[in-house]
């Protein structure tokens, strides 16, 4: 699977550019590039539903993020214990990578999943639901409780967004600004 590795390296380069570049608009565009690479990777890994959803969500995310950017990133801070902080971060990341590598050894080899639960869905899914798209059948019939919980989370997020952007608090801020003047 050399193409998956190449695509992953492409995504990592996009992410590195996104967090290191100084211009914030370029950073957001680089995140978009890495998300589109992720979309192609999903297509290569035989997940067309995920590829469509990732493509659309990526564009929506990009539109939301672009409006929130200022022109320049803040400069790298050299005040306080910056050397200690940076060193501690890198040491932690090294330990994390080593532990993760040890943990990955116990996983099944890439390309041979142990499908204990999914075996049932693969054999019985079409007979029980008469749906052709198995991902849809699992999401909306076999494991609909998950989707119900997800709908709850979406509802909570929408209420949160509504709370943040309601007009009353903005009016309060304007009044305070005027009184300060």
């Amino acid at each position, binding site marked *: 699977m050399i193409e998956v590795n190449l695509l992953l390296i492409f995504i990592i380069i996009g*992410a590195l550019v996104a967090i290191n570049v100084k211009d*914030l608009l370029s950073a957001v565009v680089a995140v978009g590039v890495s998300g589109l690479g992720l979309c192609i990777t999903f297509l290569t890994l035989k*997940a067309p539903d*995920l590829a469509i959803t990732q493509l659309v969500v990526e564009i929506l995310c990009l539109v939301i993020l672009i409006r929130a950017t200022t022109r320049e990133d803040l400069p790298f801070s050299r005040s306080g214990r910056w050397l200690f902080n940076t060193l501690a971060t890198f040491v932690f990341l090294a330990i994390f990578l080593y532990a993760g590598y040890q943990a*990955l050894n116990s996983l099944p080899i*890439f390309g041979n999943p142990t*499908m204990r639960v999914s075996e049932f*869905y*693969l054999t019985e899914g079409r007979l029980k639901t008469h749906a052709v798209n198995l991902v849809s059948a699992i999401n909306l019939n076999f494991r609909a409780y998950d989707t119900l919980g997800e709908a709850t989370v979406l509802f909570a*997020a929408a209420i949160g967004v509504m709370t943040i952007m309601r007009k009353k608090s903005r009016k309060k801020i304007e009044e305070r600004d005027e009184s300060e003047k």
Partner: protein
Amino acid sequence: MMTYFLCLVLFCVGLYAIVRKRNIIKIIIGIVICEYAVNLFLVLFAYKINGRSPLYSPDQEITTMADPLPQALALTSIVIGLATTALLVGMAIRLYEKYGTFDITKINHLKG
């Protein structure tokens, strides 16, 4: 094995941005990259060599398919990722209106 490790490296890139950057927008970008890594790991786990996508075909019996269960879970996770990103951006802009900066070291007054 190599593929799983590259996925872990991608997660570390996002983690570095969350821990070490000062700008709120950069931190949100780090969270987005972490979400990518987690979704990618779920789908990598589901891949089967010479398998086909989990769709039945009308004329032939398909025996090897990719695992559909992690794909369904990742589909849910992608949508929740968008919702959290929208909420985070909203909070960041409210903070910008209040303090006039995106620097988290200068946002240190907790009282309303």
